[in-house]
């Protein structure tokens, strides 16, 4: 731990830190561009010059390139260093255009700040400015190359950190150019990060283009609601409209970057059809009337059919507070019919994770520092993209990675891939435990033995599993395997990808209650007459749509609370609008079991863009905000129980009720969150009927797609250009057997009906499998992820 003196202040930094980081610890601001905490330093911008007076380095040096050593004495205000910085900023500005007023970066531009800090004001250079032509980089990122100052941050982000291959640096001499090698949109699903990384306005957010200035935005620390990882985000809103999302910093989860779904999938909050007024049937009513009606009709049903005739359905995308209030609403109504996930298999999976993973659960930071990662049935780029980046960082540091998955999984890092059929994943995990691979073919055995050997030798191995493909039993096997492989001095961790941002939290609350299938049976048999849906959509999120739809049609009363226009919201007898994640404060528990608090960014209301029809906002004064009734889901559910409370008192109550949620009340959105306490105990997985295997039947598996499956991002129009088209994916050898070529239409018959879709072929996938990417809101009734059934295939008969 070297101790050094900077500007007469002494600081001790960890071994290996550079002098710029040491200065940052002392809150000494030194202009710099190319240094970034996640990307490291390259010494390209020449701006962080300091004068080294004592110690191993002498004279004016770039602080980011000098490792801090004991006894160094450094001056940042030395005349020579200040003069050098002034000249460097002047030459960086030499070719920079005069366009700050029409640049979206203006106000949050590091180049503006550093120019002012460097003391450069008047342009002295009289020669011609260098110019470039721009590229079209797709629907998300806008390119303005004239503004570039050649700090290489975009390349280091896009290529080195995120593993993109289609974008980089071109040219030589005075013509260094940052762009794509060919025409076309950026291919990486982390492309938005170059917007955050660019210190000036070369890459700006196209969805936010010319919308607002940074200083006009309402911003707060938030958590991404699109997958189970809980990445930190900073949404920005203005004029009652969520206008952009940028990556937040959480060292334990995402680090600094986020994926494109988290960044550009925010349109749901401004959706033009978003229901914002409480409704009884089709009639818009006030909050008092709707709550009175809901209370009255629930009491009426409880009176006529008994309290057990009321069922409640929570959601993995509702906050922990809202789900808890739903649970107390069940107690209040004296019913035990409550489930927290419309998808029973995802429900079981989450409960297994919440019950069994405690000591061996690993955060993304621990994945980044792991030395061997085994991914089983996980497609991180589609299910939880930042997980793929975390593994990539580990691989960049020398870790090994292997993937056992039937799909042709694309990964931003090198991994050994063995396409094993979905039904054999559990068998593989048990074989890893036992250490023998006798049931596998010789070729498979060679690969698997290699993987098992590396797993044994690794010091910090982590097993990563995808909840959808493994299912509850597979997840249990994976957690047991990680326990088996753990030794006293060498623990083996596990990380699982779950269904929603709060799947873990919802599972914590569910305990031993029945799943949603039990509730559906009750509705079909007429025992359950009323259903309260909290931010869930059983009409489209249940794996068996015909079963759920026919059952739900029999309900006497459907109460829905939501912030997006789902089918359930549309069909509800009583609809209560609630705040979108960015509008309310709350807590999610991510896949690791980490409680992550998020703050309210803005108050809901119809955006001015909508009320003014894109033109002038109205010229009349109104005492209130137009259409602002959405309330936090927890307060709506509290009102149904005649409670009036603050978020803090609710959190204190939850802490008292659930021992595992200790520390909830003092959780701060600015921090890295806090793990829930261990102590889940056992969760017995009910017997699930095996899939009937037929001769010549294919295993049809519905899988997630990054821009198509998740509910909230499905309501974001910005993502429409990148949504996948529905199609089947099958092994080229299987296709050859039935004489099918890529692009031809395949007819698939299952016991749930048939599909006719074009087919794509792959060679790196398991034989006998057929994949279909789930697309929310697609005209084809595609099955929900995590569903497998037997399918018979044949070519479509040409008529």
């Amino acid at each position, binding site marked *: 731990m070297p101790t050094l003196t900077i500007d007469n202040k002494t600081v001790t930094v960890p071994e290996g830190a550079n002098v710029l980081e040491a200065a940052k610890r002392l809150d000494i601001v030194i202009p710099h561009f190319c240094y970034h905490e996640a990307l490291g330093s390259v010494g390209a911008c020449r701006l962080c010059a300091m004068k080294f007076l004592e110690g191993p380095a002498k004279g004016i040096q770039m602080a980011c390139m000098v490792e801090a050593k004991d006894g160094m004495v450094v001056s940042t205000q030395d005349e020579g260093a200040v003069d050098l910085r002034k000249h460097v900023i002047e030459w960086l500005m030499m070719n920079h*255009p*005069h*366009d*700050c*007023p*029409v640049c979206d970066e*203006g106000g949050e531009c590091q180049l503006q700040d550093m120019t002012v800090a460097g003391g450069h004001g008047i342009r002295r250079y009289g020669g*011609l*400015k*260098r*110019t*470039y*032509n*721009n590229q079209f980089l797709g629907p998300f990122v806008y390119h*303005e190359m*004239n503004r570039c100052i050649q700090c290489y941050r975009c390349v280091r982000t896009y290529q080195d950190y995120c593993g993109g291959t289609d974008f980089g640096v*071109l*040219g*030589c*001499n*005075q*013509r260094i*150019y940052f*762009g794509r090698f060919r025409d076309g949109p950026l291919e990486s699903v982390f492309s938005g990060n170059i917007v955050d990384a660019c210190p000036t306005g070369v890459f700006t957010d196209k969805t936010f*283009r*010319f*919308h*607002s*200035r940074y*200083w*006009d935005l309402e911003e707060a620390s938030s958590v991404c609601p699109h997958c189970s990882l809980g990445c930190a985000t900073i949404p920005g809103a203005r*004029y009652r409209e969520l206008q952009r999302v940028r990556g937040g910093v959480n060292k334990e989860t995402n680090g600094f970057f986020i994926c494109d779904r988290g960044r550009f999938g925010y349109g749901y909050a401004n959706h033009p059809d978003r229901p914002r007024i409480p409704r009884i049937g089709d009639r818009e009513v006030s909050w008092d009337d709707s709550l009175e009606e809901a209370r009255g009709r629930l009491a009426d049903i409880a009176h006529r059919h008994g309290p057990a005739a009321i069922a409640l359905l929570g959601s993995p995308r509702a906050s922990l507070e809202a789900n808890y209030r739903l649970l107390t609403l069940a107690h209040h109504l004296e019913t035990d019919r409550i489930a927290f996930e419309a998808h029973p298999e995802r429900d079981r999976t989450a409960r297994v994770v919440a019950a069994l993973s405690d000591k061996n659960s690993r955060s993304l930071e621990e994945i980044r520092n792991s030395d061997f990662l085994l991914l089983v049935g996980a497609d991180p780029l589609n299910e939880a993209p930042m997980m793929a980046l975390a593994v990539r960082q580990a691989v960049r540091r020398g870790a090994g990675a292997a993937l056992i998955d039937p799909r042709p999984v694309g990964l931003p890092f090198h991994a050994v891939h063995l396409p094993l059929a979905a039904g054999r994943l559990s068998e593989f995990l048990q074989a890893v435990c036992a250490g023998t691979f006798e049931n596998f073919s010789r070729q498979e055995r060679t690969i698997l033995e290699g993987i098992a050997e590396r797993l044994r030798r690794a010091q910090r191995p982590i097993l990563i599993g995808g909840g959808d493909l493994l299912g509850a039993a597979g997840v249990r096997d994976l957690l047991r395997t990680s326990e088996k492989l753990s030794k006293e001095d060498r623990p083996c961790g596990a990380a699982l990808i779950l269904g929603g941002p709060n799947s873990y939290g919802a599972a914590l609350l569910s305990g031993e209650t029945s799943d949603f299938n039990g509730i559906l049976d009750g509705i079909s048999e007429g025992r359950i007459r009323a259903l309260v849906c909290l931010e869930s959509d059983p009409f489209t999120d249940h794996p068996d749509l015909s079963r759920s739809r026919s059952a739900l049609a029999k309900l006497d009363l459907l109460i829905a609370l939501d912030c997006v226009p789902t089918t359930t919201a549309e069909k509800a007898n009583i609809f209560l609008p609630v705040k979108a994640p960015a509008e309310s404060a709350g807590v999610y528990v991510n896949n690791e079991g980490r409680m992550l608090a998020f703050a309210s960014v803005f108050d809901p209301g119809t955006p*001015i*863009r909508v009320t*003014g029809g*894109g*033109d*002038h*906002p109205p*010229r009349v*004064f109104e005492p209130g905000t137009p259409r602002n009734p959405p309330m936090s889901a927890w307060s709506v559910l509290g009102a149904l129980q005649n409670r009036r409370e603050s978020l803090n008192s609710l959190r204190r109550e939850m802490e008292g009720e659930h021992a595992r949620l200790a520390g909830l009340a003092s959780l701060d959105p600015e921090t890295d969150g806090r793990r829930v306490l261990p102590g889940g105990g056992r969760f017995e997985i009910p017997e699930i009927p095996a899939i009937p295997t037929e001769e010549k039947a294919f295993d049809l598996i519905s899988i997630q797609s990054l821009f198509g499956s998740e509910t909230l991002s499905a309501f974001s129009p910005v993502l429409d250009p990148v949504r996948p088209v529905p199609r089947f994916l099958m092994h080229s050898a299987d296709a050859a057997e039935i004489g099918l070529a890529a692009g031809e239409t395949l007819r698939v018959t299952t016991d749930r009906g048939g599909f006719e879709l074009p087919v794509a072929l792959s060679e790196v996938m398991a034989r006998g499998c057929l994949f279909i990417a789930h697309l929310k809101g697609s005209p084809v009734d595609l099955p929900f992820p995590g569903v497998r059934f037997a399918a018979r295939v044949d070519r479509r008969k040409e008529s």
Partner: protein
Amino acid sequence: MNLWRGIKGSIQPFGITFRNIFRKPSTIQYPEQKRTPAPRFRARIILTRDPDGGERCVACYLCSAACPVDCISMQSAERPDGRRYATWFRINFSRCIFCGMCAEACPTLAIQMTPDYEFSKREPLTLVYEKEDLLVDHGGKDNEYNYYRHAGIGVVNPRGGNPDEAPPVDIRTNLP
């Protein structure tokens, strides 16, 4: 002492009044008579146009950021040709204190102050001026300046076509 001051204080004002009876009055009969304000007088704000007739305002929000009383609001957007413009622009003159900060902040010389000080209204809402009310069809105090001819991002002129710019570089060449 106090008595003398009292007597003096009673008589002296009569003297001053008497002296001023014969001086030329400094007041004028407004509104029949009007004064010409100084050229840099700060009153009603206008939005000017560039010499080519385009709106100068690029809706950069600097005026609304500079405004100490928050009376300027706007929404920026992009025209098909890449020009940034204000879809709506509103100044609430009932709140404006005519400090001139907005005109000073404006990087495109769009917002300018005029000497037109006569616009008090009975209804506060009629003092809320929209873009159509603010736009004039001249360049105000500087008729020559067109911001986009200096911006260097190729909106009015093609990229690299401004006088102080080199033509776009060819990134595919390896020649020195």
